């Protein structure tokens, strides 16, 4: 079996070449473990860079809240029994199977430890799906989360199947609210008995922003409104979240994992807002984001007819549209091709007219390995 490389935090990393631009010090820092590295100028790609990515969430002002856009660009290999990498031997609209997987039933669908499956070869290379926690996996089959299954039909992606010739996959661990944001004691998250005086997390789910906070009453994460437990809410790697900080100090959250070494394919909702993570542990530009190449993306010489991208810049939501040649800021119409989208953040995509089905953003790896 010729499996795709496993993203394993313990794997010795190779040193990135000059094209791998580390995020500047400050809000976000991606630092590589430099042990076992080959620093010769002629080094070529061999293994996945592994390290710590630190997300810093800006403090509230005391009288006011500060909103930050946050995403998590590193992946962590799941450590369950059975084949964490392998070949796909069967595809249904919402499920994938590997006849030789040998998974323990239910281990990849536990609510407290959600998992992702990432396609690592073929035409669906780089697609990453959250697995269902309501439909248990079997020894050979996993089922997609209902939201993603509602947007994508796996049988339309051209995934090859077969014990010897099937496209490859890997199983990744998915972060959750509690695994990333912890408790007031571990991360400094501001807890309160009511959400309007606590730090808030907002996650876009099926087109609706859901809000969460750390309840001092329950000593755990809760959803605002239904007041249900929220510690295990998954944080998809392709999804941008909004963090409203009311605590008066910055929060720094170091995350261990590996930078992706394959093309990224992310789902763009057919209409309305998609909260899209920047996806890589390095900063990029608006022109380099390939957002303008999303199938069905509306470009126009006037913002009235164009889809828009929302980016939080220096504490303000600014909007941009693509005029067919350049990105421009809504309002003053100044060219914004070089606007930086920081690592560990993301954008909101605003499609003004709905397409028949979800689209796919395709981004090449923005660094040399």
């Amino acid at each position: 079996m010729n499996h795709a490389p496993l993203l394993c935090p313990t794997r010795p990393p190779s040193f990135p070449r000059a094209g791998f631009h580390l995020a500047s010090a400050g809000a976000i820092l991606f630092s590589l473990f430099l042990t076992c590295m080959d620093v010769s100028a002629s080094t070529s790609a061999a293994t996945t860079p592994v390290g710590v990515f630190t997300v810093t969430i800006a403090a509230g002002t005391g009288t006011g809240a500060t909103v930050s856009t946050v995403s998590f660009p590193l992946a962590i290999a799941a450590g369950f029994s059975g084949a964490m990498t392998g070949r796909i031997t069967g595809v249904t609209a919402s499920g994938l199977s590997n006849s030789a997987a040998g998974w323990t039933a239910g281990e990849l669908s536990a609510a407290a430890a959600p998992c992702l499956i990432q396609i690592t070869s073929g035409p669906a290379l780089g697609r990453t799906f959250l697995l269902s926690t309501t439909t248990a996996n079997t020894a050979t089959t996993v089922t997609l989360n209902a939201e993603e299954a509602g947007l994508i039909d796996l049988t339309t992606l051209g995934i090859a199947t077969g014990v010897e010739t099937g496209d490859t996959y890997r199983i990744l661990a998915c972060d959750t609210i509690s695994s990333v944001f912890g408790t007031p004691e571990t991360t400094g998250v501001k807890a309160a008995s009511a959400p309007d005086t606590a730090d808030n997390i907002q996650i876009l789910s099926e087109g609706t922003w859901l809000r969460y906070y750390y309840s001092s009453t329950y000593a755990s994460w809760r959803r605002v409104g239904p007041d249900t437990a929220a510690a295990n809410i998954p944080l998809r790697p392709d999804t941008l979240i909004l963090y409203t900080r009311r605590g008066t100090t910055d929060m720094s959250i170091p995350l261990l994992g590996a930078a992706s070494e394959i093309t990224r394919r992310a789902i763009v909702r057919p209409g309305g807002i998609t909260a899209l993570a920047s996806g890589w542990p390095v900063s990029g530009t608006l022109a380099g984001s390939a957002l303008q190449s999303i199938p069905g993306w509306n470009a126009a010489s006037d913002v009235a007819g164009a889809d828009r991208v929302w980016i939080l810049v220096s504490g303000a939501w600014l909007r941009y549209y693509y005029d067919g040649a350049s990105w421009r800021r809504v309002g003053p119409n100044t060219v914004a091709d070089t606007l930086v989208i920081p690592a560990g953040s993301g954008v909101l995509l605003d499609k003004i007219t709905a397409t028949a089905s979800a689209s796919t953003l395709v981004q090449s790896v923005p660094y040399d390995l």
Partner: protein
Amino acid sequence: MNTLRLSLIACLLVFSGTAHCATITFGTDDYVVDTNASTFSISSQNATSLTLSGSAQSDLYGSLINSIDLSAYVSGSGLSVALTASTTSTSDYNFTLELFDADGDGVKYTGNWSSFTDSLSSVSLTLAGYDLGGGGVFDGVVSTIAIYGGGSTAALNITLGSLTFDSAAVPEPASCAALAGFATLGAALCRRRRLGSRR
């Protein structure tokens, strides 16, 4: 005594003529909203104010019917900007107010909606920078004014009254000369009164 009163009145008249203070409103007399470039919904706009509904993420972009030349202000050490507004929402989120010239260059100020109450009140904003991405230098002639939310999806309803630009804290050399002159005149008058009373 009459001479002293006349001097003080003259002094006030001179300062009212040289003070660096200008005001525009968000009413129909001054401001036109670009609805294609704004995500706030206009609830109403009368001659002197503009009422908007949206969220703490929403933005407003519009042009002045008559551009306002603030070049004399921004060439000094700073332009003080105060926003008169009210909000019926409980929103503790930051916002940014940007003044653009015709080239898209401008100056940026920040504030927080929690500073405002449910009746119109004036709050000074904080200067946050000059780089708005226009690629050039702000020439001080403001043709468009925008407000950008920095918050999340919390509902926000606001009424915008006016913007006051003031650089009174940094008087021009001519004003300084006038001040010195009137101070000298006042001192002379006082001395004359004292001498007169001794006689």
